[in-house]
């Protein structure tokens, strides 16, 4: 670590906190949110699936996952990384693992790389866990584990790489400086050279979607659209639950669902505001957006349901809250608070309409609405981000790192010296759309293939008798409650 690379302990503190908050989202947050919605005979199966996914992915992440997502993949670099940092070989030469640093979005601002590894690990843990809601109450546990291992390897790591992999402004600055140095004393020449170097560098060392200029602050595509479409494909391939549309498949404990939703919200501040990798004003903006979009979406669903169905339900409101959280995820560091509210209102109403009407019309059994909330909400957010980022709508605009003279020189945290590279609403919207489509196709097709493989190897679904008995007893030999 050079003197210039000294980390700020305030950043470290916030990122450590953010990391554990995202774990809190998965266990117990998501597990309870989902678990409360199934029948009591399947409660443990949901809890077990989420907890097991977290643990298995954790081990995969430090062995090869982090490396596949966040290193240069050579010839395949547009799509996936390589194995340079497998087994966490991140120690700088002659130093130890605790001295390794990772760049943030601000020039000359670093955090210990282990913090970045841990933070990103929690994202890799929660994404496959989101999927289980789609085929809850009927999947084999062995099939789930096998699917998870394959899915993170062939779907999650590549998409994370495509969206987020980039050397960071630091690399950029370095390259620019080198170029300026090489160019000699002439300032204008140096600047031009720097800009060129940057473009060249960007072109060669970033994931595909990053190169396109797709914006995804905290994982709208990588996490939510990705998991949502994988869930839909799974629900279709496993088929409907026995009794679907006939029996009372009511949630066994909305209390648990409410606890889960609340912990998701609390933890999501780590997810969204942590994605800034620093503790500054932009982090605060991401937090504020995560607050108000959620409020707006919860209220929107509540009133929509009240108007249409006659009663405002808790499940509706918390579903709205989650839809708002999903939608604001890609926008959290780009939109302004009023933009975030608008996004939340739209997400609440659209997702309500989708899961209560469209889904019923289509007749598939996505048990816990992974598609209707995460994929639909994620798409709304991804597209909305392209619009709301506009400073005209209160957004932050997009930093054009190649013009960040002040930022490059002074390494200040805010990029007041940078001009905007916002290509305008239409163009950015189109870029976002492309990113959404690529994710839908990659994850949709990839997941379908993987489900098929798993079905051939161990079989996807439990027998009807075991499904009726409940997965808790059939698959895990336990009962959730002995009151």
């Amino acid at each position: 670590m050079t003197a210039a690379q000294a980390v700020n302990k305030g950043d470290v503190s916030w990122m450590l906190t953010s990391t554990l908050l995202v774990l809190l989202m998965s266990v117990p947050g998501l597990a309870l949110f989902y678990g409360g919605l199934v029948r009591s005979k399947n409660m443990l199966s949901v809890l077990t699936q989420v907890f097991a996914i977290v643990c298995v992915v954790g081990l995969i992440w430090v062995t090869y996952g982090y490396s596949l997502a966040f290193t240069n993949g050579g010839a395949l670099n547009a799509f996936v990384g390589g194995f340079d940092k497998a087994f966490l070989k991140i120690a700088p030469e002659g130093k130890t693992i605790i001295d390794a640093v990772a760049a943030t979005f601000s020039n000359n601002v670093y955090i210990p790389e282990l913090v970045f590894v841990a933070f990103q690990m929690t994202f890799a843990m929660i994404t496959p866990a989101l999927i289980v809601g789609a085929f809850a109450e009927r999947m084999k546990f062995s099939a789930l584990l096998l699917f998870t291992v394959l899915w993170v390897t062939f779907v999650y790591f590549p998409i994370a790489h495509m969206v987020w992999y980039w050397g960071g402004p630091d690399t950029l600055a370095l390259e620019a400086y080198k170029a300026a140095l090489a160019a000699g004393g002439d300032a204008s020449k140096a600047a031009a050279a720097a800009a060129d170097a940057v473009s060249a560098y960007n072109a060669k060392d970033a994931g595909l979607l990053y190169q396109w200029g797709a914006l995804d602050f905290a994982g709208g595509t990588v996490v939510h659209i990705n998991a949502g479409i994988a869930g839909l494909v799974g629900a279709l391939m496993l088929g409907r639950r026995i009794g679907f549309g006939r029996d009372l498949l009511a949630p066994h404990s909305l209390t648990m669902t409410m606890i889960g939703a609340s912990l998701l919200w609390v933890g999501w501040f780590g997810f969204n505001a942590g994605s800034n990798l620093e503790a500054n004003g932009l982090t605060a903006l991401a937090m504020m957006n995560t607050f108000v979009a959620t409020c707006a979406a919860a209220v929107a669903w509540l009133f929509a349901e009240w108007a249409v169905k006659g009663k405002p339900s808790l499940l509706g409101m918390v579903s709205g809250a989650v839809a708002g959280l999903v939608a604001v995820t890609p926008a959290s560091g780009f939109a302004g608070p009023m933009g975030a509210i608008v996004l939340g209102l739209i997400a609440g109403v659209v997702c309500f309409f989708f899961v209560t009407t469209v889904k019923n019309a289509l007749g598939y059994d996505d048990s816990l609405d992974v598609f209707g909330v995460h994929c639909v909400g994620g798409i709304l957010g991804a597209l909305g981000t392209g619009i709301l980022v506009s400073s005209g709508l209160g957004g932050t605009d997009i930093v054009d790192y190649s013009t960040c003279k002040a930022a490059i020189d002074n390494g200040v945290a805010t990029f007041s010296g940078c001009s905007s590279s916002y290509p305008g609403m239409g163009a950015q919207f189109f870029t976002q759309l492309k990113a959404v489509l690529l994710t839908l196709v990659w994850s949709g097709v990839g997941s379908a293939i993987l489900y098929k493989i798993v079905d051939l190897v161990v079989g996807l679904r439990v027998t009807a008798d075991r499904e009726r008995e409940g997965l808790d007893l059939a698959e895990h030999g336990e009962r959730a409650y002995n009151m």
Partner: protein
Amino acid sequence: MKIVMAIIKPFKLDEVRDALTSLGVHGLTVTEVKGYGRQKGHTEIYRGAEYAVSFLPKLKIEVAVAADQVGKVIDSISVAARTGQIGDGKIFVVPLDHAVRIRTGEKDGEAL
């Protein structure tokens, strides 16, 4: 001896118990049950999935009494459990051949 079995609305339990106590009936057994009848249930909606719930929570009270008490018992339960609205429930009387108090081995009339 008879067993009087009454299906009542849950919030009427205390009144029924008091009524029976004042008749001198000092023992009874209560079970939580679900009743289906003329009283309409309600609809529950969970994220767009609508369920018509036609079973309503009721309590079943079982009291073993001497045959000559049956009339009074029926009457006092009827009065105490009545709200006058659909769903107040039913009283059934079934014959009771023997009764034993486990603790003492007392039989029949003694056992109640």
